[in-house]
């Protein structure tokens, strides 16, 4: 098959491309330039759009003996990922830009362009597994967690639909990371020892608050307690995420002397609500814009595991899915569930659906009100 291998310049995507070559496919490497003015070189932590990364991807393609091109997706990336990221924070939510990039760039803009140019598959270095099953006589692709739980990226791929998964390949899903590095070294790929990227690629210094402050400016507002009393002030609600404790700098101590956490952000009044850790625990999640991996919407109520943040623990839950909403009831209340993040539903290791968290609540609190 003709395979388009997305090559970031890191070890994972290089080995993914190598495996597609080894499997006998006709592979072409493509590096996605996501910034108009790529920085020359970076030290320490790295992003995904420096000249050094582009060079590393090119050298890996040379070693593999495959054609290599750079595609400029900086306009799409700015519109669909960076601006969305800023707008979500401005609206009091906590977005996941990697997920958005997969949804809008890698498995949308790149996949569609690749398919039109005659490629059968897009291969990436994501850690996830694809299997095939037959449903009603139709062959369907299923998305599963990677075997290496520390590297599993199925959470940020849960937004992919059957149509997208059908033309995707994740050659690393069955391999632990250390084996991927060893394989890169055996193949003579210079990126074998290149550090993993951890940061948001368009914020290479890791200072998300500083980045948002430059984009959004100062937007001072009040910090209030659960009763609505003002207990402090903030320079911008985008500096906070539900569950956050640090950086509140509250002037008025809590009555019980216990630490306080961000419970919620209200964009309309630009207030940040704080309260005790116990008040963070929620067991109801309402999520919007659902995506499902199967061809048919698996509508209705089901039990399984849900994950509410990247690298979060799977939580037992019951969910009800429609074409427009995903309602989740957790078996046990959990903390730090932030609007804007994805809630991903799993049946065992298989991804069933993903949706964007819109609001949270607690059965106990509802009972109190009632």
């Amino acid at each position, binding site marked *: 098959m003709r395979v388009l291998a997305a090559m970031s310049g890191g070890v994972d995507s290089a080995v993914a491309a190598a495996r597609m070559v080894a499997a006998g496919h006709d592979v*072409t490497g493509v590096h996605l*330039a996501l910034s108009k003015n*790529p920085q020359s070189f970076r030290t320490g932590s790295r992003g995904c759009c*420096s000249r050094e990364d*582009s060079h590393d991807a*090119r050298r890996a393609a040379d070693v593999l003996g495959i054609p290599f*091109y750079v595609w400029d997706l900086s306009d799409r990336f700015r519109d669909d990922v960076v601006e969305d990221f800023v707008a979500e924070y401005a609206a009091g939510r906590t977005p996941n830009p990697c997920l958005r990039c997969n949804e809008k760039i890698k498995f949308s803009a790149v996949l569609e*362009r690749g398919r039109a*140019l005659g490629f059968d598959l897009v291969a990436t270095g994501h850690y996830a597994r694809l299997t095939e099953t037959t449903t009603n006589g139709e062959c369907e692709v299923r998305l599963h967690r990677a075997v290496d739980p520390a590297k599993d990226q199925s959470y940020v791929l849960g937004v992919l639909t059957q149509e997208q998964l059908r033309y995707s390949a994740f050659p690393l899903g069955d391999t632990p990371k250390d084996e991927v590095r060893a394989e890169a070294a055996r193949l003579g790929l210079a990126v074998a020892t290149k550090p993993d990227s951890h940061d948001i690629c368009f914020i290479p210094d890791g200072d998300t608050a500083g980045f948002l402050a430059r984009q959004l400016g100062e937007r001072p507002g009040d910090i209030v307690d659960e009763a609505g009393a003002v207990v402090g002030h903030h320079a911008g609600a985008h500096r906070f995420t539900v569950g956050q404790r640090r950086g509140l700098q509250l002037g008025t101590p809590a009555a019980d002397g216990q630490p306080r956490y961000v419970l919620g952000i209200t964009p309309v009044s630009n207030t940040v609500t704080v309260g005790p850790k116990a008040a963070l625990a929620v067991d109801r999640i309402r999520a919007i814009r659902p995506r499902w991996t199967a061809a048919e919407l698996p509508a209705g109520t089901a039990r399984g595991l849900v994950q509410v943040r990247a690298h979060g623990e799977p939580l037992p839950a019951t969910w009800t899915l429609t074409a427009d909403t995903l309602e989740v009831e957790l078996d046990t209340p959990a903390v730090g569930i932030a609007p804007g993040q994805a809630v991903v539903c799993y049946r065992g290791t298989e991804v069933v659906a993903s949706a964007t968290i819109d609001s949270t609540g607690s059965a106990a609190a509802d009972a109190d009100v009632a």
Partner: protein
Amino acid sequence: MSSATARVYLDHAATSPLRPQARAALTEYAGLVGNASSLHTSGRRARQVLEEARESLAADLGAAPAEVIFTSGGTEADNLAVQGSWLARRPGRNRVLASAIEHPAVAETVGALRTAGADAREIPVDAAGLLDLTALNDLLTEPTAVVSVMAVNNETGTAQDLAEVTRRAQAAGAWMHADAVQALGHLPIDFAASGLDLLSVSAHKVGGPIGIGALLARKDRSPRPIGHGGGQERDLRSGTLAPALAAAFAAAVRAATTAREADRAAQTRWRSRIAAAVTEIPGGRVNGAPGSPAIVNVSFADCRADDVLLLLDRAGIDVSTGSACTAGVHQPSPVLAAMGRTDEQARQSLRISMGWTTTDADITALLAALPESVARAQLAYS
């Protein structure tokens, strides 16, 4: 793998394959012992190879041997010409003029001079890429140090009326420089007859080795050196000279000069074939006024030139999107922008450039693959 098999190479304007005559000279003198500046027998032998190359080049370019200044290539020759002329300017002559479609070797040098305090201006071009001579007259009303206009554009092949530009520039008291890198081997060059003060050429665009070029500088024109050292090459360009590269350069230019009219006739036919085929393709057009038939710039509506390049590459055909890269990212062509095209249009242009290895079969292969490649790239456009 496709890249290892024979390719249809249509990117001679980027670099042209080494000619056998150049390879023979390079091989013959690669082991030559001696620094051409040394006084002993070995040094004299090296000097002899170098001077014979200089005389051969001078003869082919209508220049005196003393007017040939060897450089590392076209870029250095352009830098020396433009920056050196400005540094050597007479008091009060603070203006520097270059066309809006210069190669980066000139355009970026002019930009650096602007930062250094020069009154640097661009001479605009029309939609066909031809210099606006009325604008030139207006720009020359200020005392000008140097005017730099390329003989043949590297993206479109368009040739300028250099004789007229030279006449006007010199009448205004300015030195006149032409980047003739893409003219060499394709259009006749007669330095003496041209009246130019300075002219840049490069070896590898005509089948010479990469790493050598020359600035032709009239004997009574001494731009100030931009690199400092042993004072070789009339004190204009320091650095140990490379006799083997110079000999191979001269051999390539001799071969190109000998074959020039026959090559030009063939390339003119091929250019017509390409132009006819391109206009048959929906949204296809040829960009720029003619000049050197070796370069054909074409564009196709509703597609990315990048994608056409990828598809032709897959079909074994090497062409270019014809402009600068940042981290491998194809930037919209500033040349087409200067010709009034939008960013989008400037990303839709492809450069096909022919040279001494080009055959009928190459053009047939290109024209067989082009319509489907464009159709597919148009499908991939959103």
